[in-house]
């Protein structure tokens, strides 16, 4: 942003310097614009400007019927599309009090956990690259390719899966798919150890992440943080354990908790979560029942009049759907999505105040936001 000769030097005057980070910036994970007020290098205040990727998903849902909306949910958090589908589909089933066959629930859990691993891999890659460790980015994406191949084999798409329907799943698993998933589950823990050797006790990584963006449990809950960002502050809150959905009640897995609520805790929490996801997938594959994958669903989905809110644990946090149906038309009267990325992003100004510009880059990475979900 070139300014004329004199203002360029006045950049040194002791009064504040206002710079724009984004919306086109290498490390804002999408079209996010931060207006930073700096005193030298220190961030005094930050105004977050969003809406550049607003496609009006909630308005679109009022023109589409319940099956077509699954496509829209894919494109909100495009890094974790399976979780979006799962959240939406389960809310509609709750609205219509539909019974989903056990096998479909197990497959849905496997898909959701694979999606969590893929989303955390993208998070780790971009977060590490922002702080300078470029190699980790390449390693993470190599593993993510394996997950994408699994999804492609199941539902034909790598990013926007459209893999679930109200009442169950459109298609059953192809033969050999489970063996491939097991192979991936055996491979991943070793790879996570590789990332740990590169980063976990790397002095420079520790110095860039320890005590950066500290937030206490109470503040985190109040500002609306959910998911790994909240659990890193020591708050025991995981929708998979608190309000078990799909087949989660049949599996045992730990929910990792952080102590200080800084960037390093959020990093360790997410790594442990990846390992736990592998355990869940393995348990799900072992206990996979037979049977149909699609419940009894009327041809024209027309839920009874009423409203409900149902939340699932997406990789970013609590992803909730609030659907109001008027009982007459084929499309929902009102569909509201509770986006974890937006609520986590709201905490950014509080986290960043007092830190340096270089930390803001690390903080954007640590709250793991995807602008598709923030702007909807």
């Amino acid at each position, binding site marked *: *942003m*070139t*300014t*004329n*000769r004199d203002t*360029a*030097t006045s*950049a040194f005057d002791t009064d504040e310097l206002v*710079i724009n980070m984004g919306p086109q*910036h*290498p*490390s804002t994970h999408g079209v996010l614009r931060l207006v930073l007020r700096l005193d030298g*290098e220190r961030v005094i205040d930050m105004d977050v400007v969003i809406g550049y990727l607003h496609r009006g998903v909630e308005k679109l849902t009022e023109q589409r019927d319940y099956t077509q909306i699954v496509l829209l949910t894919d494109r909100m958090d495009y890094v974790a599309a399976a979780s979006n589908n799962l959240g939406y589909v389960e809310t509609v089933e709750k609205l219509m009090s539909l019974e989903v066959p056990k096998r479909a629930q197990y497959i849905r859990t496997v898909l959701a956990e694979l999606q969590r691993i893929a989303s955390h891999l993208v998070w780790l890659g971009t977060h*590490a*690259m*922002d*702080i*300078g*460790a*470029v*190699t980790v*980015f*390449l*390693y993470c994406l*190599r593993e993510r390719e394996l997950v994408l191949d699994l999804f492609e084999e199941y539902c034909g798409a790598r990013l926007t899966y459209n893999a679930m329907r109200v009442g169950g799943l459109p298609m059953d698993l192809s033969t050999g798919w489970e063996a491939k998933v097991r192979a991936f589950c055996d491979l991943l823990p070793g790879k996570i150890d590789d990332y740990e050797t*590169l*980063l976990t006790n*790397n002095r*420079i*990584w520790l*110095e*860039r992440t320890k005590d950066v963006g500290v937030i206490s449990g109470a503040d985190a809950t109040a500002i609306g943080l959910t998911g790994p960002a909240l659990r890193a502050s020591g708050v025991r809150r995981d929708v998979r354990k608190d309000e078990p959905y799909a087949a989660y009640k049949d599996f045992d897995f730990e929910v990792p908790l952080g102590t200080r609520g800084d960037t390093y805790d959020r990093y360790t929490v997410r790594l442990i979560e990846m390992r736990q996801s592998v355990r869940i997938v393995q348990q799900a594959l072992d206990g996979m029942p037979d049977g149909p994958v699609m419940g009894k669903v009327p041809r024209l989905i027309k839920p009874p009049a009423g409203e409900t809110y149902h939340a699932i644990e997406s990789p970013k946090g609590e992803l909730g759907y609030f659907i109001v149906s008027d009982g007459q038309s084929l499309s929902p009267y009102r569909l509201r999505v509770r986006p974890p990325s937006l609520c986590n992003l709201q905490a950014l100004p509080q986290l960043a105040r007092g830190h*340096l*510009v*270089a*930390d803001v*880059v690390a903080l954007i990475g640590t709250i793991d936001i995807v602008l598709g979900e923030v702007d909807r």
Partner: protein
Amino acid sequence: MIDMVVIPVFKMLVVITAVLSAVAYMVLLERKVQAWVQVRLGPMRVGPHGVLQPIADVLKLITKEDVRPASADRFLFTLAPILVVVPALIVFAVVPFGTSTTMFGKEISLYITDLDIGLLYIVSVASIGLYGLILGGWASNSKYPLLSSLRASAQIVSYEVAVTMTLVSLIVTAGSLSLVEIVKAQEAHGVWYVFIQPVAFVIFVIGALAETNRAPFDLPEAEQELVGGFHTEYSGMRFALFFLAEYTNMIVVSAVGVTMFLGGWLAPFSSVSWLAWLGLVPGWVWFSLKTFLLLSLFLWIRATLPRYRYDQLMRLGWKVLIPLALVNLAVSAVLKVLL
């Protein structure tokens, strides 16, 4: 007449071409090493295994349009890259590649000159290179390059102190400023100074990394924060000069490191009898081998380590390296007197 003019000019030409081709292939090597570390192939398209990639880069940079922002200061904008490249190249005048060989009947020493203030010459020329950075950032007259050029110069000035201290502690052990004498002293001592002064070597490598804006200290060009650093506004030939200077500085620093710590052109394990045949290999081969070793250390560090934040970098420089270097200097002085 011959000795005064023809031979030095010939030597200079040889050294300049050697350095420039080394820089070109260093760029390719860096991209290859980083690619192998990151499980990918690196440039493969130009020539077999991307061997001709450096030539392609040079051609691209030369033919690319040389844009200069309108509000930039014309005179300084062109002066800055020159002020960066020239100091980087003229340091090689003092670096000894080997003792002397006889070529077509005449005794030729494998270094351009043997200044008895060689080391001081290197340090002072390196401090001139600083101007190019600052003026480059100032001349492009926009906020980001200005900020990053000041960061770069502050970083270089503070690490220069630490590096100079380590070199001084080496002069104390070697007893002379001239690089040729230092290598001869290592030969006399029979042991490389890296074993006598391990702490100094560590500080030197860290300082060198910081002084050439490399690896964990490549803050000024950190894309994530200052969008391209001080050469954002440069393109085409001028950018090529900045790029050239960075890699030449890397070679300079590793060459100096090798001369001071790893016994310039000395063959390793000269004292071990059954390894004596290593001595048959000419000196300058050993020198380039060791320099290559130090350079690959740079590349390897760049591929793995994340980046320091600016204030941590300065704290490390001032509160850790400089005191350590001073203590090292004091200790080596005392040892010199006692031994």
